[in-house]
């Protein structure tokens, strides 16, 4: 059984509209009848990744492969990259600006949450080139 491939472009800058990709993905996963807990975890990870691309990388693209036993979410951007991944992974570490903070983002919890809700997480990043965060969730 081939994986179902979903692609969602994520626009940069627009924090108010952010979250659209994860809510679209969620409806698709519901149509497939995946277990509610899997849908919830995938959706939380995707939402955090999407927000990160909007705030920190001026947008990007989310690619989702839904297979029989796992969901793979790849969030790919051509933003500034992450200089120190270990630091970025620490709870509370954030470089978010004032605007994002005013809207309730910037608690430094996004990446740690993605780690917690996923079964596997991998970050590939190069300063000045971009970042790809890959998340796997077992079904």
């Amino acid at each position: 059984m081939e994986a179902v491939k979903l692609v969602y472009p994520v626009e940069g800058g627009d924090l108010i509209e952010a979250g659209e990709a994860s809510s679209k993905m969620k409806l698709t996963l519901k149509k497939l009848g995946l277990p509610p807990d899997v849908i919830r975890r995938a959706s939380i990870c995707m939402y955090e990744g999407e927000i990160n691309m909007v705030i920190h990388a001026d947008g990007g693209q989310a690619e989702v492969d839904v297979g029989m036993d796992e969901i793979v979410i790849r969030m790919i951007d051509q933003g500034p990259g992450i200089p120190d991944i270990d630091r970025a992974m620490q709870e509370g570490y954030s470089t978010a600006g004032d605007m994002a903070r005013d809207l309730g983002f910037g608690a430094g919890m996004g990446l740690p949450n993605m780690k917690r809700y996923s079964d596997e997480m991998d970050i590939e990043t190069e300063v000045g080139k971009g970042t790809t965060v890959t998340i796997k969730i077992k079904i």
Partner: protein
Amino acid sequence: MQHSVSIEYARCRGCTTCMKNCPTQAIRVRRGKATILTERCVDCGECIRCCPHKAIKARSDPFSCLEEFQYTVALPDPALYGQFQHLDEVGRVLDGLLELGFHAVYETAKGAELLSDYARKHPGDAAEKKLPVISSACPAALRLIRIRFPQLLEHITSTITPMELAAILARKKAVEETGLLPEQIGVFAIVPCSAQVTAAHSPDDLQQPVLDGAFSIRDLYLRLLSPMQKLDAPHTPSSAGKAGVRWAFCGGEASARGSSERFLAVDGMDSVIRILAAIEDDRVPDVDFVELCACTQGCVGGCLTVEDPFVATMRLRHLIRSLPDVACSYDDQVGDPAIVQADKELEFAPVYLLDPDRTVAMEKMSAIHDLERQLPGLLCGSCGAPSCHAFAEDVVMGRAQREDCIFQVRARMRAMTGPEDSDEYLPAPFRSKLGKVVPSDR
């Protein structure tokens, strides 16, 4: 289930307005007429509001139903009180209803107030639920959760709705007062919306309906005007306080529960959907209680009301100034805690599921995506589906045919006739080049 929302075939021109505005994508246009995918309809009334040809109606019961009963009780929704200009006392509306021929009135606001009192006195009920606790009072929101947010079913209060509680108590009271049998008594709600009409006949939370029917505020409004004007001083005292009447507008239920300020009161289908999605993903922290109203401003904005919802809310605020904060107590009036409990488990209705077998569902999803890639993404609606994605899904699910998309037909024409002229089948905005210009004489 019989829905209240229905399309008047003769009036519908198939303009696709309702289809594009339906929050659950429950409408398709077939052979030039709108049709409702019954299992997806939540009776929110959005289509009734937006139809430019007034072709969508909410069926409520005819007044002739009253003749089947020896004794009839009217259950006015508090939103009714906000419909009248210069109304000074709730009692005048109640008198008007008696004047129209109902033998008794029982305010739905009283049912609401008793439920609020119950909730305050039994915090343990809510403690068994997942937080935030979600209200079950708006049947359109409730059905939305049942079809789209199954995980949230465990959050919903297990008590019945104000209309249902009022109906049970009204019938009991009438039996005691008249000595008639329960079935000889007709209990009719006067409701603001199609969702309540449907709920009166097919409740989500009760095995058996407790009402005999429902009339719309709109249908009763004109009939009520003249008897209300003729009356001098109102005789019938109102039996509900501020707490009960406030349920007519969004936020009223939450404040009547009186628990904390950590509540959300959300109105309008789009906002309700957005908030439910956020709650599902744990993105709404620090909230204890969520009140949901499918309609703008709450039930005052119901699709079967007459007055503008904002005006009605203002009038209600004025009207309740003379009412006591609370007029009745659960322990005195009801006592038995079992009466407010729903006796039917709220069930998930997987109407969006492509197939119960996940392998099959995935194959179908891939087929949908393959087809969608061939579609132009214009959302023109001429295929009769609200979006190209929905159309692709309809085709794969056997609800539509590929050829219903005018662009699929074009592709086929082009293959047969070559590139020349094949665009002429399309309406002007969709042609890729200008049509042949016929030179005029002058």
